[in-house]
């Protein structure tokens, strides 16, 4: 599904190297979690994969189902099946949530040569998906993320994911700013999307999200590299002992 090889990334404006050779393969149907201390490069990895400006890939590759995504515009990556749930979803005053989502769904369909979704069909689908995520109709009409609570913003991200049905989902610290109930709701939304045709990369600081979204693999990232890979037990180890032991081991 997603194959990252020896990825080196610098900040464009400062001469600062953030990623120093990331190797990671996410197989179809699997959930990979990435944990690591602040500043280890987790969010940078998600931004570089989704095509945000400001980063320069100096070495390495990232392939999605055999296609080199690093050469694509952000919208092409999305149409190819990549989705990033933002840590801080952007507020866009004046753009209705529903208008935005319909534009996005149909833009992706068009890019893939598929038939666009009719207004009636779109309404039916979004209502059903919003209901499952406990998003009320009023939230769909409001401008994108404007005036949403932290929990609402994250649920909105998951709603977008559910509507766009990407092949590869990256969740960048989706648990930040969520209380326990909101986290459960978001995790349920993610779990409902888990299937054999989809891969997940869950970036998180804490093990608690992984109580609800059970990962198949856990990676620890430090100083721009993945320094250790294991099963779900690795997250528990971090929860109990912190990163110090692991970092000392690889130092």
């Amino acid at each position: 599904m997603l194959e990252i090889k020896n990825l080196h990334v610098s900040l464009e404006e400062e001469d600062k190297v953030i990623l120093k050779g990331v190797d990671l393969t996410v197989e179809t149907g699997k959930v990979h979690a990435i944990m690591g201390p602040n500043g280890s490069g987790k969010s940078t990895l998600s931004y570089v994969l989704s095509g945000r400006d400001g980063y320069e890939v100096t070495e390495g590759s990232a392939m999605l189902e055999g296609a080199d995504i690093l050469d694509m515009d952000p919208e092409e990556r999305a149409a190819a099946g990549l989705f990033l749930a933002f840590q801080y979803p952007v507020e866009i005053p004046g753009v209705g949530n529903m208008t935005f989502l319909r534009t996005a769904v149909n833009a992706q369909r068009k890019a893939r040569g598929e038939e666009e979704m009719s207004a009636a069909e779109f309404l039916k689908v979004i209502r059903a998906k919003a209901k499952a995520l406990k998003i009320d109709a009023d939230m769909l009409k409001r401008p994108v993320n404007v005036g949403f609570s932290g929990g609402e913003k994250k649920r909105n991200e998951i709603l977008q994911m559910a509507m766009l049905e990407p092949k590869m989902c990256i969740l960048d610290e989706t648990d930040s700013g969520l209380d326990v109930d909101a986290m459960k709701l978001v995790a349920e939304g993610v779990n409902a999307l888990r299937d054999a045709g989809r891969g997940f990369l869950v970036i998180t600081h804490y093990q608690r999200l992984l109580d609800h979204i059970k990962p198949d693999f856990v990676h620890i990232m430090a100083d721009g590299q993945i320094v250790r890979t294991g099963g779900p037990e690795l997250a528990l180890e971090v929860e109990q002992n912190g990163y110090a032991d692991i970092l000392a081991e690889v130092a």
Partner: protein
Amino acid sequence: MGMAQAKKDLTETRLADLKRPDGAVWANEARAAAEARLRLAGLPTRRDEYWKFTDPATLTAADAGQAAIFDAGDEVPLYDGIDRLKLVFVDGVFDADASDDLTLEGVEIELLPEALTKDIHWAKGLYGVLEERGQTPVLRPLAAMNTAYATAGVVIRATAKVTKPISLTYLHEAETSDAILHNLIRVEEGAEVTVLENGPAAARFNKCMEVEIADGGSFHHVRAQGRDHERRAMTHMFSRLGARSTFKSFTLTANGVLTRNENIIEITGDDAVAHVAGAALGDGANGAFHHDDTVFITHDAERCESRQVFKKVLRNGAEGVFQGKILVKQGAQKTDGYQLSQALLLDEDSSFQAKPELEIYADDVICSHGSTTGAIDEEGLFYLRSRGVPEDAATDLLVLAFLAEAIEEIEDDRLREDILLRLHQWLERRRG
């Protein structure tokens, strides 16, 4: 040659081929007085403070210049689905065949040349009257010229709640047309009327509208200027508001080499409301785009509210101007005045000049103004693109979002939807 002589020469040259229409004695007097005002002031030049940001040369030149006719393609005509009484002017000349009968319940509609030939007519109290008042504190010689030389227009007197909007469509069919139109609107006590305007009008267009709203009356105005890239237009709207009256005006502008819209509003009755808004979308790629909104609102009564909301989206070297003033006279207590002008510059070649002003002589008022110039929100753009929306469509979504606050000033849902549809069509056309 001195400045005064230069202005005099400019004025004489412009007026050389113009002839004042003939009508009733009172109308002729109004026209002659307006011409005297014009000659005294002289036509404006860039050196006038009030024209510092906008060069009036093409508006004052003797030659109207050319404006190629724009192919509207499959664009849906504006207001097409709205039940309305339609009056059509082609290059400034009334087209009776293309227009509806001038009969509508609750309103008297006449053509200006006919009304101005009647010895006794209510228009005597309005024609050139608000225009003359609007010369203070700034001279508006192009408006005076309009009063003196207007050859067409419509005279509307609403006496009740008029059941459907009156629409004025200004077509442009001759590449060198030079039209001067003057409209008069009187809204009687408790009456209500909606006037719609659209169309590029002429290669060069000078339009004046005088609106008087009696106590408790309501006037709603929505207009769209645009389509032809090369046209030049100067419009003045002079309004006087009575107690508890409502005035709401919205203008959408796209294309056009030069557009200057002046709105001069005088609130003379307590508890009146005046909202004036505009959205302009300018692309300088077709030669030029210069759009100027100039507003002057005088509060001269208690507990009145005024709002100015102007938004401009500029690209490819397009230029935007906003000059807005709120004058609160002594005694206009509890005034609530709000003024906002914002520009979104889609590239570094475009520019926006703003001159927001407040002048307040009453002590118990809430008045605020704000003016900003900004670029597209890169974070927002990336967010939309990351969801699969292509860059140009994402930019359009953000453009629509930016303009939304001005478009929301249109109260009527159908009219708002119609204007939005027109805006979508313009954006789509631009994307190709």
